[in-house]
């Protein structure tokens, strides 16, 4: 394994931050302190973390309705994210977007997206821009299994393969699109096989295992950067919570969820792996847990104290001149 101790600790920090961030949101929404529609990433942390560990600020990420994890892993400031979720003027989109629209141009985060499938061509175009401008950047599109049934997915893969674009398509196959099991509506067992129609390379990773995702995403990104073309990387994963905060989860068996949560938790898995290999100390991890909690608590305090966008913001950002 080629990760240094610092890199491992950084990866753990990201995994933990995503988990804690989402748990905090769940708490805030349930307590009625935060509004909006929230889709939590709990259970899928290893995917965003494993992929984004290879990315820098010149690289682009297009995200989804379940986007907090991608944003955190891509380096978006969690204070600005929290403020955005509270709809405050200090948020990433000045409180005008909310959960499904967190975007950050500094970090190459093209945005979470409320329209399922819409981010896939956006990442494809960003990849083309990186190629034409010769920036050496790559683009990553994250999306769910459900999104691969949209035409935009197929149209994008065809173009990217045809033009050998520096893009990696990361499908987070969590077995459900909202309340419908994936195998009700998709005839192939592995979404990865869909790449075959576009003569595109594909790969399947255990999305609950940071190291497996890290390795396979690393190869896909290396190839994309080297001009060897796109990859469809399928990460098999599971969302521990409901589709959205408040989902009563009537459509899936308790035992199924329990099994994933008890036996395949990506954070527990990571911790077991690094401790067993004596790569870091348990104390290091606990210190990170503590720091993350403090950072989050401060973010909540700041966000709650921040003002909402002023009324004048209702009419700004529609056209370039700042007024509609």
């Amino acid at each position, binding site marked *: 394994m080629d990760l240094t101790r610092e890199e491992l600790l950084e990866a753990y920090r990201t995994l933990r931050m995503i988990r804690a961030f989402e748990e905090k949101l769940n708490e805030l929404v349930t307590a009625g302190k935060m509004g909006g529609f929230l889709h939590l990433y709990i259970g899928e942390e290893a995917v965003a973390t494993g992929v984004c560990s290879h990315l820098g600020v010149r690289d682009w990420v297009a995200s989804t309705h379940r986007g907090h994890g991608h944003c955190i892993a891509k380096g978006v400031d969690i204070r600005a994210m929290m403020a955005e979720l509270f*709809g405050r003027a200090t948020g990433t989109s000045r409180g005008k977007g909310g959960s499904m629209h967190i975007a950050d141009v500094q970090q190459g985060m093209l945005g979470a997206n409320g329209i399922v499938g819409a981010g896939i061509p956006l990442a494809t175009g960003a990849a083309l821009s990186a190629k034409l401008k010769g920036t050496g950047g790559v683009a990553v599109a994250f999306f769910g299994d459900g999104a691969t049934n949209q*035409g935009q997915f197929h149209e994008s893969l065809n173009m990217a393969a045809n033009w050998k674009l520096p893009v990696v398509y990361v499908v987070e196959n969590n077995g459900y699109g909202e309340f419908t099991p994936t195998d009700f509506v*998709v005839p192939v067992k592995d979404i990865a096989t869909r790449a075959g129609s576009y003569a595109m390379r594909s790969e399947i990773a255990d999305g609950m295992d940071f190291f497996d995702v890290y390795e396979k995403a690393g190869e896909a990104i290396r190839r994309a950067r080297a001009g060897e073309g796109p990859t469809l990387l399928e990460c098999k994963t599971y969302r521990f919570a409901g589709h959205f905060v408040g989902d009563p989860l009537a459509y899936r068996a308790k035992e199924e969820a329990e099994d994933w949560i008890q036996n395949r938790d990506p954070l527990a898995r990571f911790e077991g792996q690094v401790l067993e290999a004596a790569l870091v100390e348990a104390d290091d991890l606990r210190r990170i847990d503590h720091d993350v909690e403090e950072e989050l608590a401060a973010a909540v305090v700041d966000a709650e104290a921040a003002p909402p966008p002023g009324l004048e913001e209702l009419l700004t950002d529609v056209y370039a001149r700042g007024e509609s």
Partner: protein
Amino acid sequence: MAETGSLNMIQALGNALDHYMERDEMAVVLGEDVGAFGGVFRVTAGLQEKYGAERVFDTPLAEAGIVGMAIGMGLGGLRPIVEIQFADFIFPAFDQIVNELAKYRYRSGGQYAPRVLIRTPYGGGIRGGHYHSQSPEAYFAHTPGLRVVVPSGPYEAKGLLLGALECADPVIFLEPKRIYRSAKGEIPLDYYTLPLERARLVKKGEDITLVAWGAMLHTCQEAVALAEGEGYDVELIDLQSIAPYDLHTLVRSVTKTGRMAVVHEAPMTCGFGAELVAAVQAEAFDHLRAPLLRITGFDTPFPYSLEDHYLPSAERILRGLVETIEY
């Protein structure tokens, strides 16, 4: 005496679908999560159990494909009833709706007229942000060949949905989700239909004609009560059918009141209010006593944190009414 029941809008819509499925065995319900789960808003709950998975089924997440396929089903003689989960997600299917569904009858010289009805929740007020709040009625009203219908309560929801299902044209049936559960009423449980293309006079009045549809009708009712407190007598009309619309009822009312205000959630520019004021001024010009007014959302995307300011409120409507009456 026909039996009645206290139903909210979701239940009334489900009841209408149940009646229709029972009557027309060509009727098929399809959409994302409509089958086993019964729909995100539960409108189709119980239908799959009753009518089976061949007639009520879950589709992949693929709006263009869902609508395109429904059109083909209609061409083949079925009666598809599509649910698009939120009106904001209808746009991947826009091409199929505008270029195929709306024009089939015309372009085939009347040979083909697929009877597709698309139900979709629309509108703001639920903190849904940009993509769970929009009001797209004007896009579809701008497409000849489509009917656009918006109910404002459970009685209208059931009657208009059944009326729309009996109709031979394609229909975009927009359901105001903010009042899905809050708008309740005692309604007939038997089969009944309401005529399309007819506006509903909600309250008679002398000073001004106020026109709205969907959830805004309820906000207008609050404004009417406030206006009454200030001594103004408002005539309130529920448009119900956006396309085609009942110009006659509006003109008759404005001929009497000499004034009109139209309220909608969608942005002002090219919103459906623009059509209404243009048509009414042409027909009732000699009777007008004030400029016709539009009270609408702003010309911006639908905001997340500022939605209370974006949506017309009873107070904003009241101000518009008073200013127009006192013009």
